[in-house]
């Protein structure tokens, strides 16, 4: 990290001005970033942050 006030580039491409039909042009690795985020893959159960220490699935 360069400093205390800097911009960091993320793993997600900015598609704010990309029409849906152009998504077919993206490479698989760019697409895969979306399924890897949130700290896990879609193999894992969906992370659920909750305020209850007993109720599974408990992740918060």
């Amino acid at each position, binding site marked *: *990290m360069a*400093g*205390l*006030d*800097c*911009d*960091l*580039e*993320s*793993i*997600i*491409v*900015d*598609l*704010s001005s*990309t*029409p*849906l*039909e152009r*998504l*077919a042009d*993206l490479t*698989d690795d*760019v*697409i*895969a*970033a*979306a*399924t890897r*985020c*949130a*700290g896990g893959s*879609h*193999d894992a159960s*969906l*992370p*659920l*942050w*909750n*305020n*209850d*220490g*007993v*109720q*599974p699935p*408990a*992740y*918060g």
Partner: protein
Amino acid sequence: MDRHRLNTAELAAMVSGRVGPALVEGLRAAELSKHQLLLEAVRRSAARQLPRDQAEPIEHALTDLADLQQRSPVAAREVIGRPQIGVWAMLFLRALRNGETPDTGYLKNLVRESRAADPRGSRVPRLEVSSGGLTLSVRLDDSDPHFGIYGDRATIDSTADLKIWLQRLAEAWHLLVRHAPDTAAAIAGAVNTLVPLRHGGRTASFSATSDWAFGAIALTLPANALDFAEILVHEFRHALLGAVTDLLPLLVPEPSRMLYSPWRRDPRPAAGLLHGAHAYMGLLDFWQRQGATLPAAARFLRWLEPTREALERLAASGALTELGAHLVTAMRSQAERWHEEPHLPAELRDPRRSDVARHALDAAADHRLHWRMRHLRPDGAAIEKLAEHWRARRRPFPVSVHLVPAPAQRLMPSGRSMLLERAAGRTADPAVEATGADEAHLLEGRYAAAAAGYEVRVDARHDPDAWVGLALCHLHLQPDAFLCRQPEVVAALHTRLRHRGPDAAGAPVDPRRLSEWLSDHRRRGD
């Protein structure tokens, strides 16, 4: 192609409790890009893995969505940005991966419904509340199948149901805008869906957020406006941190060791502590801005110190990336400022003069001590040897303890824990009643009397809850007692001595004497 970017100074401000509109807008835009990527991932996976007739509904739905985007980019963004899109896409991809049948018709129905529906005639009611020029507009969605991830949903099937949700949300919104208008504005910019849940036998309110459903908050109907406002702040902060971790890693990939979390009764990974601390930094900010008003001041006192301690454990965990460490440092600095420059009068903060402060201290200690008694197990051979040293009047030695997570069914809070939380949070929970004289003494601050009662209980049988009560009393009677630091060691040794017979003189083993004896190795600098 450009990637979404995050500014570290804005992130540091966010984690410390205050979130700016530019950051929320940036995170919302990034979540929209994530959903677009997920839709394309679904399309590709369906085309590759499903028979043509099953993949077609996905292609058709995306064609319809693309048409909508051409005619009305705003309407298309609204559909793509819906929180259930993320959940559906992830469940779809997971089903394909596991060889199960994915829900191929869902997207087409959602797009068709959104194109056709007059918002006033939609099956999903919308709650809209305004205060001080700020409006929150959310769907109250009790029917989307993919929101089943949160648990059993409450059905909103009458005008009366809708009215009570609207009324309570309006009161909460008023409170939030009045005390924390910037937080309210940020919530209005990000939260678009509430998922009503059934209480399902819970005595306390329940709320949840999923990292795959940015913008949605699931919750049971809160009991009052403050609880509702707190849930909005709390869950919004989970959603914010989830969106940040979608973009940049805050934790190293290796699984972390399990840690004590003051918000949960089970041992937690570093990710859990990070989320808990981040949520509570927002709540502390909200309570702090309400000054000495109760119950906000009581809740601030209840949670400041446990949050500070959790941040210290996180900082020392070795689980953080460089950015994660930077953000934890920012949170620690803010928590330190709240600690060093208290906004509450001294008489309210002093546990010897204020029931509010005393109950805050006791509820926090009760939670920590319970966690130790439930999940930490002293080394058995060392306890056996320690018992021999005790009987032979030799010096004690340090005993190592191991984390052995207790099963979920043993994690229910004790009656005393619930009483203390109710007293500390100034909540009204009719299901909680004093269960015995010990609890009544303890709540009233008669610690010597309470301790005598707990000593009788620990003498009679193995009673972890009584050990916690006894240790809690000693926090006031003799704060440096070994029992307050490691009750699990004193309890294990006491149990061992009880089973093997008392001391040579035949007297029962006094827990206080055991605790003093165990302190001995520390005093001598061993």
